[in-house]
């Protein structure tokens, strides 16, 4: 890459770290993961004393936990609606209860994470399609009450048959059906908008993952909903949950594989250190859970263990993705290297990359306006 007089790098320490990481990676990549070296960017990059350019999210683990509970609520609602449509009463009841519990936990996590929790209702001032968080607020506002009505309606048989409560008893059944359908109709939005929420940031690992993240989160939501069903529902009504566990796990695993291998430099954030450990744990748990879901048709204990593994897999996926985004924002390499390569490529294409013979005083990011106008622009 750039030839420099020793010491001109913005950060000698950062460059040293990048070099050591480069070599460590090269050694490891040699062991049977052929071709991976080709994705490794130039080891040298410049930065301001190795400091982060971006601000990592200030969100706490509440948000990672919410990604899980929101998905669980969505997956459970879909299974409950299926149970409702096919007369599987136990499945319906368990799904609705899980959904309400998960959506209540979601609301808690979301409000608790605000810098000013008492102002949570300011979210309801506006509806902004450019803000996935605003859209999510409205999705949750639609989903929550529907899920709540559906779950509460399961208590109808406990009410007396006469009087005011008797009336409530008669109304609750149909209301629960409507609520159940309402929750199922908004569940896919609830499960997938969180992927857009993370992707619509400058954190490189989140932003770059936008083509795949909705599938990871959607699959993870189905797998966790199915997992909860395997834990809570009598064996006789768990057939659909087993099939859904396999489908959801397949989407979650395929998507996660693409996150870990298909995003160029950003993939390193998903495969190294703590996020990498979480993503690997998610893979094993989800694989074991999905296999168990197929094999444990006759065992209550086996089903419960498989369901727990699926829930654990989903939880690890959410935390892994969450931590990967944070890690990619903390390390300026993820921001600088792809942007620098993009500029260098552009300059090389246009023949406007000036290189002094001795490589000093590189003015290699100067892109005149005529060239800039030819930059590829999306959707045009």
């Amino acid at each position, binding site marked *: 890459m750039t030839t420099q007089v020793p010491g001109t790098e913005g950060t000698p320490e950062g460059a040293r770290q990048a070099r050591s990481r480069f070599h460590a990676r090269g050694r490891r990549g040699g062991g049977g993961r052929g071709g991976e070296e080709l994705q490794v960017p130039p080891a040298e990059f410049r930065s301001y004393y190795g400091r982060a350019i*971006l601000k990592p999210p200030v969100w706490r683990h509440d948000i990672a936990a919410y990604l899980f509970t929101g998905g669980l609520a969505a997956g459970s609602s879909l299974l409950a609606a299926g149970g409702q449509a096919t007369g599987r009463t136990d499945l319906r009841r368990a799904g609705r209860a899980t959904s309400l519990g998960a959506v209540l936990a979601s609301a808690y996590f979301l409000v608790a994470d605000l*810098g000013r929790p008492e*102002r949570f209702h300011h979210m309801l001032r506006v509806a902004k399609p450019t803000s996935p968080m605003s859209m999510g607020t409205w999705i949750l506002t639609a989903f929550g009450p529907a899920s709540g009505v559906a779950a509460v309606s399961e208590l109808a048989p406990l009410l007396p048959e006469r009087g005011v409560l008797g009336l409530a008893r008669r109304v609750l059944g149909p209301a629960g059906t409507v609520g159940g359908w309402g929750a199922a109709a908004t569940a896919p939005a609830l499960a997938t908008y969180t992927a857009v929420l993370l992707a619509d940031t400058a954190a490189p690992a989140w932003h770059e993952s936008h083509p795949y993240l*909705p599938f990871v989160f959607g699959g993870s939501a189905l797998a966790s909903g199915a997992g909860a069903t395997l834990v809570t529902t009598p064996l006789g009504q768990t057939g*659909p949950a087993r099939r859904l566990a396999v489908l959801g796990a397949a989407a979650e695993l395929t998507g996660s594989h693409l996150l870990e291998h298909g995003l160029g430099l950003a993939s390193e954030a998903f495969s190294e250190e703590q996020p990498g450990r979480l993503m690997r744990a998610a893979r094993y748990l989800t694989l074991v859970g999905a296999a168990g879901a197929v094999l444990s048709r006759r065992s209550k204990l086996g089903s419960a263990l498989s369901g727990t593994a699926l829930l654990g897999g989903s939880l690890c996926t959410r935390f892994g993705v969450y931590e990967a985004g944070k890690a990619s924002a903390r390390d300026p390499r993820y921001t600088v290297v792809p942007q620098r390569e993009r500029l260098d490529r552009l300059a090389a294409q246009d023949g406007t990359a000036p290189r002094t013979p001795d490589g000093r005083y590189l*003015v290699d990011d100067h892109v005149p306006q005529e060239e*800039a106008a030819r930059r590829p*622009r999306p959707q045009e």
Partner: protein
Amino acid sequence: MADRNSFYGPLESPAADAGWEESTPRMGFFTDTSVCIGCKSCEVACKEWNLLQEDGLSMLGMSYDNTGMLSADTWRHVAFIEQKVARKPPTDLGMPQMGPPPTEVDPKDMPQPDLDATTQSPEGPVDVRWLMSSDVCKHCTHAACLDVCPTGALFRTEFGTVVVQEDVCNGCGYCIPACPYGVIDQRKDDGRAWKCTLCYDRISDGLMPACATACPTKSIQYGPLEELRETAAKRVANLHDGGVEEARLYGDDPDDGVGGTGSIFLLLDQPEVYGLPPDPVVTTRDLPAMWRRAAMAGVGMLAATAVAFVGRRS
């Protein structure tokens, strides 16, 4: 009001795009780092005017920079970069020449500093230069912080700048990872997000922002962005003519990833050396694609659920 380029690409007037019917010219900063002397007057003036609290007194070991970065309580940040660079031949300034003054000591007997002994590298003689630059919010044409704000606390002013309404912000924190420059941040003991307002209160009354007012070298200039772009173009051409070929503008190009910024900079090295992203792109450029993917995944979830319930009843 929404334009084809409301989310990406060049935009005539961000204020008009945001719905202002009568907007003033777009106002901004031009920070010419070639004349910055690193006095930090801008940091201090900003803190004083905006009543920003102290945010940590520590020695960072980064040259004269003990501020570190822009944050909720630092809206101007002066970066210091010490570099070794190849020695350039001295510029002939065309000054009148004269002989050495009469002296009783033979010049050959005077002690001569051995400059080369300390400034040699294997690549040849080197000098040291200091880059100093006062960073600030970019007030982007396409501001990701504003786009993603779920409460409407962040808004576009009639000056085309981007400001947080502190009475509306509920501290959701979404703007913080959305900013491609890492400008906006959360004040820990307060929970809300804070950043440069381009002195909205001062410029509304026809005053200059505090930092530009305090800057003793006119490194920070404030004015209509249109004029600042011209000033900047002239200045960079001037520097190129004078042999400072490493001078380049940053943020002046309406075709860049954020539609050009309201704060433009003249830099003497690559942006990343100053802690600036080399080619930032507003994240909402890809938002339509993201929503489409999410919709596909959502339909997939419904289809998978339907498939799971079809077939044997068990």
